[in-house]
């Protein structure tokens, strides 16, 4: 069974077609990269997967289940999680608060209105473990907006991981991260658990080629090519529309 699958997905904004008849299959445990020039519709596709937009037509399946009509939060509960290209964090929360929130919600504790946060030991312990894993434990009491960008980026990923997703969508995880903090972020991405299916949007071809086992190329909203790293890197047409432009 495929972890994530789309059938004839179309999204139009007024007269503009951002996603053009995309049928995509991503198998369980894959490291799947989505590449394509700017404006190719990569982020739109992620937004369709996660329910930010409803598609104009077509279907989306998660683990074989049709999730096209589900709202965003219900998709998260079924194991689909994402990071954003531009950090979407709670600026005045501390990393500890953010993790308490993310993990508490996964465990369904978010409706408990009579329990002090501190009394939720199992969530607190997992929050700290996750913060340690993402090298955020030392700054867990700082306000998020005061953290260095690389740390904020790590928190962005940590929040997505806290949902214990089956499928994780990473929208340019290393974008905007200063060189000296970059390795830290990439290390975390590479060390993601193997059973998690990862879909990666990325412009950095070195990262794509070293990380992905399969690549889909998008151009003008449509699926242009798909194959292994080998095949894609040798495909002359891909080079022409994408790599050529970069090189």
């Amino acid at each position: 069974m495929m972890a994530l699958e789309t059938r004839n997905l179309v999204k139009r904004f007024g007269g503009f077609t951002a996603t053009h008849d995309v049928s995509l299959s991503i198998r369980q445990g894959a490291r799947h990269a989505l590449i394509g020039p700017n404006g190719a519709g990569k982020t739109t596709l992620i937004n369709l997967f996660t329910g930010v937009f409803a598609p104009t037509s077509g279907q989306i399946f998660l683990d074989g289940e049709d999730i096209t009509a589900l709202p965003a939060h219900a998709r998260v509960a079924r194991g689909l999680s994402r990071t954003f290209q531009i950090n979407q964090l709670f600026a005045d929360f501390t990393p500890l608060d953010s993790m308490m929130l993310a993990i508490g919600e996964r465990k369904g504790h978010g409706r408990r209105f009579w329990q002090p946060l501190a009394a939720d030991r199992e969530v607190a312990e997992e929050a700290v473990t996750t913060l340690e894993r993402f090298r955020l434990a030392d700054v867990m009491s700082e306000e998020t907006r005061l953290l260095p960008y690389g740390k904020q980026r790590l928190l962005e990923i940590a929040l997505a991981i806290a949902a214990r997703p089956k499928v994780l969508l990473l929208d340019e995880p290393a974008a905007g991260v200063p060189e000296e903090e970059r390795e830290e972020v990439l290390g975390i991405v590479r060390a993601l658990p193997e059973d998690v299916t990862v879909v990666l949007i990325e412009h950095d071809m070195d990262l794509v080629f070293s990380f992905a086992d399969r690549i889909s190329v998008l151009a003008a909203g449509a699926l242009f090519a798909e194959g292994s790293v080998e095949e894609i890197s040798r495909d002359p047409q891909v080079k022409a529309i994408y790599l050529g432009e970069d090189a």
Partner: protein
Amino acid sequence: MTDHQAHALRLLTAKHRWRVWEIALWLAAIAAIFLLPSQLLILTEIVILALFAVSLDLILGYAGIVSLGHTAFFGLGAYAAGILARDYVAEPVTGLVFAGLVSGLFGLATSFLVLRGSDLTRLMTTFGVAMLLAELGNQAAWLTGGADGLSGISMTPILGLFEFDLWGRNGYIYCLVVLIVLTFVARHITNSPFGLSLMAIKRNPRRAAMLGISPKRRIVTVYAVSAAYAGMAGALLAQTTNFVSPDVLAFHRSADVLLVLVIGGAGYLYGGIFGAIIFTMLRDWLSVATPQYWMFWIGLILVAIVMIGRERLTGWPALLAARLKSRTGEAAR
């Protein structure tokens, strides 16, 4: 337990700990019974307004819902308590609970109106609901007394034990106890995982959804709780004054309570209480100077607050909180 875990637990516990200034505030309020016996009527007014503002803070400060008609719940509670006392049971605590239930249910029923649409739609629907109730209250004169107001209320002693006295002593104590209990409850709610999720929804709804939070139920819940609080504040007014004026549903009350909360600062519960103290004192002072034109001053204050910037003006509680936070943070280390 690792060092990090111990640190995290200390941080989380510190959030919930009673601060010195909170305790001082409540002690001062209690001391007022003995120190300011001649001011108890106005203090009662402050306490009721404070409770009303705390209820608005729950939806505005925590869930980010701007309401132009919060007095709908206040007025409904006042009428519910008034009618219950006039026609059926005149015991105050029963009336308080009844008013809370009526307003809470009405809040639950109308909460779906604030789920959809933009700030503007919310403004309009909350405003519309309040106007609708005001119109109803005005038309149903057989029940509410219409434009003359609801009179003929005479409350029996609180729990059958404490009679409302002429000096307003027991009335003040009664209202203060209600405020303390309800603030304590609100404090508990806002420090819970539920409270944290509300703050998350207000700050970044997109991310909140991506953490699997369904905002609807959370907002419905807090809206109903807030409505119940406002209803109880209304009940206190009806019970301590033995009268319900149709003015409880008037637009200016919704505006006043917004101003109260804005003066004190939204989003930390006590803003409503500090705001109510400042607002009532200002009103007393200004209406002695120019009795008729209180409305002008209130308008001027609103304009001034916005032009100067709410953050800058009401930064003091945040500053205080930050200072205390860093202190407790250090203590926690």
